[in-house]
């Protein structure tokens, strides 16, 4: 039983981790926390349903189009509107605005799309896989694989590519990076675009489990936020660790203790981390 629980925990954790990494990237480059991150998952999920179920695009094209459109909407449009308008005023106005944006997105989808949950097919056929006496879901293994590829891809891009290095420079010291000729605004746009791609991928992985619904992002956004705090808000690898931990804690608590306590245990870990290592497990202290 433990093997399948670990796989399931890692599968859920991988989804949380992708969203948590988005939180970290935005914080590192712009010092902003996006409280509509959950709705940023909901939007591409609805776009996927629109392209696949309503407009009958082929499945891969529907996902690709949704990811591209999400990158445009949640990356470029978001940067040029709310971020540009609010970045100079600090984090608090942005937090309040994104909380309002989250409400708006949920209400908009309820009224103009549907309040009902919609199913969305997974990228692989959901079949039980038997190995060493345990049963694994093909979907869970696929989720872990896709999340690993996306996270490694983003990490390699940030570490090895020129724009990625510029992004790191802005994250480490924005003023110094600007003096060195790096366009900080472009880097913030890049961070929002990477975040949009990450949430769009997590939407594709989460939709078959969570079903596509106007409030599907509530739980995902909240868990990813916990993950980012537990792992370290200023470290991508911290967000990855935090995401996997949250997924594992939830799944193991539901199996061995009680469903009712699974969120409570995550919050307990969060409190312990804040008390003893406020910067997060892998985070670094900020000035």
């Amino acid at each position: 039983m433990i093997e399948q629980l670990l796989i399931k925990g890692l599968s859920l954790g991988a989804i949380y981790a992708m969203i948590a990494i988005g939180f970290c990237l935005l914080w590192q480059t712009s010092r902003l926390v996006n409280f509509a991150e959950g709705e940023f998952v909901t939007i591409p999920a609805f776009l996927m349903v629109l392209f696949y179920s309503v407009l009958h695009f082929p499945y891969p094209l529907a996902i690709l189009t949704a990811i591209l459109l999400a990158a445009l909407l949640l990356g470029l449009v978001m940067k040029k509107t709310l971020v540009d308008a609010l970045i100079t005023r600090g984090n608090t106005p942005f937090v309040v605005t994104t909380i309002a944006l989250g409400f708006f997105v949920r209400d908009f989808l309820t009224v103009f799309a549907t309040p009902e949950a919609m199913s969305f097919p997974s990228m692989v056929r959901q079949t039980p896989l038997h190995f060493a006496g345990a049963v694994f879901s093909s979907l869970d293994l696929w989720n872990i694989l896709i999340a690993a590829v996306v996270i490694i891809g983003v990490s390699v891009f940030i570490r090895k590519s020129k724009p990625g290095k510029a992004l790191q420079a802005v994250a480490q010291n924005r003023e110094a990076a600007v003096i060195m000729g790096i366009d900080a605004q472009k880097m913030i746009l890049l961070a929002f675009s990477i975040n949009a791609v990450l949430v769009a991928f997590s939407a594709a992985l989460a939709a078959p489990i969570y079903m596509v619904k106007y409030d599907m992002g509530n739980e995902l956004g909240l868990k990813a936020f916990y993950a980012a705090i537990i792992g370290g808000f200023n470290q991508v690898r911290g967000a990855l660790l935090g995401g996997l931990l949250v997924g594992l804690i939830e799944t193991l608590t539901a199996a061995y203790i009680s469903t009712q306590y699974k969120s409570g245990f995550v919050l307990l870990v969060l409190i312990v981390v804040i008390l003893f290592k406020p910067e997060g497990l892998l985070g670094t202290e900020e000035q």
Partner: protein
Amino acid sequence: MRRLLPVGVLAAVAIILFWAVNGFAQQQDKVTIAVVIEQSGPGAAVGARWIRGVQMASDEINAAGGILGKKIDTFILDTKTEAPVAVAAMRKAIENKPFVVMGPIFSGSTIAVMGLLRDAGIPEFVGSESPNVGKQNIANNPNTFLGSLNVELSMQKVAKWITEVLKSKKIALIWSNDELGKSGREALKKLLEPQGVQFVTDIATELGQSSFTGELSRIKASGADTLFIYMHEEESGKLLPQVRELGLDKQMKVVGHDTLLTEDTLRLAKDAANGVMGHVGLSPVAAPLKPVADKYLAKYQELPDHNFYKSYISMSLIKAVVEQNKSFDQQKFREKLKNSTFCVKNYPGLLMDVHYDEKGDLDRESFLIKIENQKQVMAGILAPLHADWFESCKK
């Protein structure tokens, strides 16, 4: 100027009188029914079916001349699937002095508002199947009437089916941690444990929960021969694919009551619902309900669920009771519904013979359903719990 003043006053009085008389006349021509229902939140999907039931029945009744010559006029208020919002919506509905209130569906909201309606003396039909609704009705003067068998009564039929037909000995129970799930769990355990049936797991789940691997892993290791699921439609629709992923459907019988087998659950679970069996109070594949299902299908391109039928039939029942009373007296309405049987032969809109007891609970036939190719298939008809109540309908 002074000469013109009395003329102006007279004209104003005439206009006010005209409005008052005209408004009063319009008021006299209609009967107002408030629909206080889940239009948003987790109950939005089932609330939408309930509204369609009210609207379809209203249209048909109005087209046939209304109730005692009065057209049905409905207005809808949203509970947002939250009990405090339901209370506020119900207060607003009561201000408009409706003859009857239709809704809510969720048991928590229903129990929260029924006191308001009792104080206002307005009868209501609800989608809730909680036995606590009947228990909280004022003895011998129910104000709240259920649209379907309450869970305690349904579970009497389910328990008999589980022990006599499925011959289950070890049950894994998974239920939603709210009024719906709790009442079903309590009723089932109370009926089955004395018969030697063992509940090897007993797991509560959260409303809106998406991943059930931890819970299902416990069930898989429990040695159960039957998995009984009693959760809302959305959670049931998410659970069934995970049941299949872990191979539980090969290991044990997967059964449930009402919500596990509705159209909403099937739409979400798709082929993972195949093979599931259970008891339903109202089904579109039941012969008496099929003609209305066909009309619904033509209008909405989907099959109706039990919540549609609950409101549709309740609207027809309003017409039946008022016409028997020959008045819109709310006290007489309540009295007439108490300990009474209503037969389809007299009121075809009821679709099935129905009996209401002194608590506002009903009894009638119900159905055993199996899911094949993502569709409900009739597996059996279960007689009412009190067959003697329906003797008059056979004459």
